Each structure stands twice: as structure tokens, then as C-alpha cells.
């Protein structure tokens, strides 16, 4: 809704406040970036707000390939790769399950299917601390404790299902059931209807779900720190280790470069496909 009169004499104030807000949100990332391009002596002499005198890439290089994390001094590149190795199959599997589940829950309903959907929603609310101990035990028994694949991936797939199912269910509920009925009369079966009718109109919700899962899994710290060890850890855990590693002089520029590396993938996705990201946030929120 728009009220034209509001603050009309104060349009200046309006933009001033919004710009102040923008400054508050941009400042930390700006400081991260400029810090990563400086040397430590330059940080000491020029402070953290000043632009770097020239673009110095040594902190980036060090963070990527030689910073000490845990026992090794090979930088974060391995952990960065780990996160990709984790996130790609986890997103694909959990999104695929979500699509089929949503399809069943809207167009192949059976007695109790609605009740099941609402019961599943608990999985979108619980603090995951409530499942960590049994999950760690089960993974131990399965012999996959501490592993990235399949250990951590499995955790992310399982605890992503409630979200992906919610997204697809709420999307497919808006697709006229008559379409499905007509296809059934024509002799089309369960999978044929899914691939011929549902999937072709699903691009937006696939984007929303995949981006949501990508962001959640990439950014996750709790599961990573509990379920993986050593060289199997995702990048968020490695960043925390790097920053925590106490050396004689704290290399803030290296910390910031490493943190920026970890931030880049989700940030790029956000800048390219922010529309879908926001839709996921608000859909998951408002309908949950």
C-alpha cells in the first residue's frame, strides 16, 4: 500500500534514513573486503576504514592455500571444495524428494496424508540440538561418523526434507487438480503426470527450493562441527578454526579474506537470484 502524503515534506529525511540503514548493512562487508586487501602493517597504520593503498593479494593467497587450520597449513581451499562436494548432492536429493512429496501430498492424497504433512512441519521448527545425540550415535553405528559424504550429507538431506516438502506442497496445491484428473482419464500414470504436467511448471519452485537448500547447507555450522572431523569439515567450520587458531600475531587480513571466500558462493547466488531467495524466506515463513 502507498500513502502519498506520508512524509512528503520529509522526502529528504526518508532517503536519509534509508541511506543510513544501507550504510549500517554495508559497513561490515566493506570493512571485511578492505581489510583482506591490506597487509598487517598497513592495518596498524591506516585503520580499518581506509581503502587499501594498493590491492595486495597476499592475504587472499595465504587464506586460500597456506593458512593453518587444525593440524594442516594448506589454507581453506580444501574445505571450500568440501562444501561444494557436500552441497551439490544434498541439494539435488533433498529437492527431488521435496518435489515428489509435494506432488503426492497435493494430487495423490490418501487418508492421513494431510495429517502427515502437518506432522512433518515439526521438522521445520525444532532446534536441531534435539536430534544431534541420537544422530551421532546412529552415524557411529553405520560407520559413517565424521565423514563428509555420506555422513554429513545424509544429515542435511534428512533435515532438509521437511522444508523442501513444504515448499513444493504449497506450490503444487495451486495447480488445478482437473489437469491431473484429465491426464489420468487419458491413461497417464503417476510418473508420467509428474514429468509431463508438474515438472514443466515447476521451474520457480525448484529455484526457490534449490537456492534455499544451497544457502542453508552452505552456511550451516552446527551439523558440520558435530558430524565431521579434520579434513572432512565444511568451510564454515574451517573458518572458525582459522580465526580461533592462536598465533603470535593475529592475522586479521587473512581471517577476513577466508571469511569472504566462504561468503562468496551464497552471496553470488543471492545477487543473481535474490528474488527466489526472498520468496523462499517469506514462503517458508508465512506458510510454515
Amino acid at each position, binding site marked *: *500500500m*502507498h*500513502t*502519498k502524503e*506520508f*512524509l512528503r515534506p520529509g522526502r529528504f529525511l*526518508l*532517503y536519509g534514513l*534509508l541511506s543510513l*540503514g*544501507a550504510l549500517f*548493512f554495508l559497513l*561490515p*562487508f566493506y570493512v*571485511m573486503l578492505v581489510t583482506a586487501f591490506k597487509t598487517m602493517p598497513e*592495518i596498524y597504520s591506516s*585503520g*580499518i*576504514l581506509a581503502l587499501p593503498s594498493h590491492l595486495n593479494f597476499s592475504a587472499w593467497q595465504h587464506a586460500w592455500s597456506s593458512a593453518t587450520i587444525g593440524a594442516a597449513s594448506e589454507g581453506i581451499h580444501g574445505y571450500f571444495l568440501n562444501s561444494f562436494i557436500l552441497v551439490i548432492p544434498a541439494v539435488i536429493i533433498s529437492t527431488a524428494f521435496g518435489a515428489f*512429496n509435494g506432488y503426492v*501430498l497435493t494430487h*495423490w492424497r*490418501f487418508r492421513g496424508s494431510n495429517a*502427515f504433512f502437518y506432522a512433518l*512441519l515439526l*521438522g521445520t521448527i*525444532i*532446534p*536441531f*540440538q*534435539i536430534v*544431534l*545425540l*541420537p*544422530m551421532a*550415535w546412529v552415524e557411529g553405528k553405520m560407520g559413517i561418523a565424521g565423514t563428509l559424504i555420506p555422513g554429513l550429507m545424509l544429515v542435511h538431506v534428512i533435515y532438509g*526434507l521437511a522444508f523442501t516438502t513444504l515448499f513444493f506442497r504449497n506450490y503444487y496445491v495451486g495447480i488445478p487438480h482437473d489437469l491431473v484428473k484429465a491426464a489420468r482419464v487419458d491413461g497417464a*500414470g503417476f*510418473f508420467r503426470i509428474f514429468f509431463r504436467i508438474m515438472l514443466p511448471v515447476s521451474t520457480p519452485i525448484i529455484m526457490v527450493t534449490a537456492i534455499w537448500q544451497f544457502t542453508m547447507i*552452505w*552456511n550451516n*555450522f552446527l551439523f558440520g*562441527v*558435530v558430524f565431521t572431523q579434520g579434513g572432512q569439515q565444511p568451510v*564454515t567450520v574451517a*573458518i*572458525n578454526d582459522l*580465526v580461533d587458531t592462536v598465533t603470535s600475531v593475529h592475522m*586479521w587480513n587473512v*581471517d*577476513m579474506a577466508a*571469511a*569472504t571466500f*566462504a*561468503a562468496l558462493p551464497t552471496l553470488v547466488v543471492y545477487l543473481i537470484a535474490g528474488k527466489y*531467495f526472498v520468496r523462499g*524466506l*517469506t514462503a517458508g*515463513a*508465512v506458510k510454515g
Partner: protein
Amino acid sequence: MSFAKMELGGRDQIMAKLVLSPTFLAAVFFIYGFILWTVWLSLTRSTILPSNHFIGLANYHDLFGSSRWWRSLINLGIFGGLYIFISMGVGLGLAILLDQRIKGERLFQVIFLYPMALSAVVTGVAWRWLLDPGFGMQAIVRSWGFPHFTFAWIDNPKMAIYTVVIAAVWQTSGFMMAIFLAGLRGVSTDIVKAAQIDGASTLRIYQRVILPSLAPTFFVALVLTVGLAVKSFGLIIALTGGGPGYSTNVPSIFMYVFSFQRGEMGVGAASALVMLIIMMIFAVPFLYLDSRRQA
């Protein structure tokens, strides 16, 4: 013919159940089963390994006898209360400002919301830098000619929890803005126009018409921020590590430390259950109202 068709339909119906079954089993086992399992663990003498030795409520006795746990609960109250209030306030404020036919609205939205795309760990690292007394904001203001300016909350056990509020507000206020903006755009323009024709001032229209009709949005925002507050973990670990001392411990950190570092699984399970209960106190009324609204 029709019999054959029914057969076919029946086969599809079975297929549908088959497709849903992995998720069904996962929900039964990994969500509901694990919750019950954690409840059971909290009643046993489980330490480094799970044990089935039943000890009643002894773990809860230990938990609520622990000053570190009380510190964690109180911190969640302070952090959660301030964080929820401020992030909703900032979010609503930005949403109202953005709802005034703003040029560049899209750009402002992108800027307000991008922290939501970052990992909490990245946010923690960035703010740890900004709040560092030697380099961060204290040093900046001092360099502007105020040599006695002091802002060292992050090193101060009494104040460190407020730095967590700052970083968390920074990360999620844009999210609240998006929620409230969606709510504002959903307010019927007819009611607003009617009020304008009646000569009501804009402030009054917001007070009496628009904000009251946002009640469901406020409720959604509350449940979301409660969830984010209770689940906050990576942010605090990266920002303060739970310190100085235990001064920024919250239940999520307590649970992690007792379960996975100190080998006190029973107490850890008990703390996890308390976290779940805190969350459900807020979520259950929401789910109830939501299901009634949809029905």
C-alpha cells in the same frame, strides 16, 4: 475396461505411497523417534557413551543446579528479548520507509537483506573485527580525536552479550523488513483510502488501521525471531566463542559443550529438551492459529 482403469489407479495410489514412504520413515525415525530418544537419554546416566541406566530426573537436577546453565538461560533471555524487539523494530521501520514509493526500492532491499545470505560464522568473524577494541569502532572513534572514547563490550563479561545482539540484528533485520513489507503490501488499499477520505492523518492511519491489520505478520515475525534466537550458535561461537569465560554462553552452546566436549550426554540431552520446550511454547500457538486459519 473400467475395472482395468481402477487397477491402474490403484497401482498409482500405491506408487504415491511408496514415493512418500522414505520421508515418512525419516520423519518417524529421525524427527519423532530422535526426540523421544533424546528424552530417554536425558533420563539416563549417559556420559561419553549412551547408557540405559535410568536415573530419573537427576540430569535435570544437575542442569538446573549448574550456574553455567543459568547463565545460558539468562543470556538467551537478554539476547533473545533485545534481538527480537530490535530486529522487528528495525525491520518494520525499514519496511514502512520503503513503502513510500521510494526510488531505488529494489536496491535498498538487496542491501538490507544480503546479510541473510551470509553464514552466521562469517557474520561473527566480521563483527568480531569491527568490535575489536584495538582496531574496530573504538579505535576508529579514537582516531577521530576522541582519545578517551571506550567501546570494548566484546572483552567485558558484563557487556559481551550485547555485542551478540548487534551482530544478530545486523544479520536478520532485513529478513524482518521483507516479512513486514509483504504484510504492508497486503493491507487493503480500500480501508486506507476510506480513512484518508475521513481526514485521518497518516500517522493515525498507521496507528489505527495499518499496524493493527498487521497482527498476523507480527506473530509470524515473533515466531521466526524466537526460532532464530534459540538456534543461534555459529554466530556466537565465531563472535565471542561463548566468552569471555561463560559470559555469552547460551543453551545451544551449553548443549554442544556438555554433549560433545565434556562427555555429559545426559545433561546435554536435558538441555536440548529445554531448548525444544522453549521453542514450542512460542510455536504451538502459532501452528494452532495457522491451522485454524487454513481450515
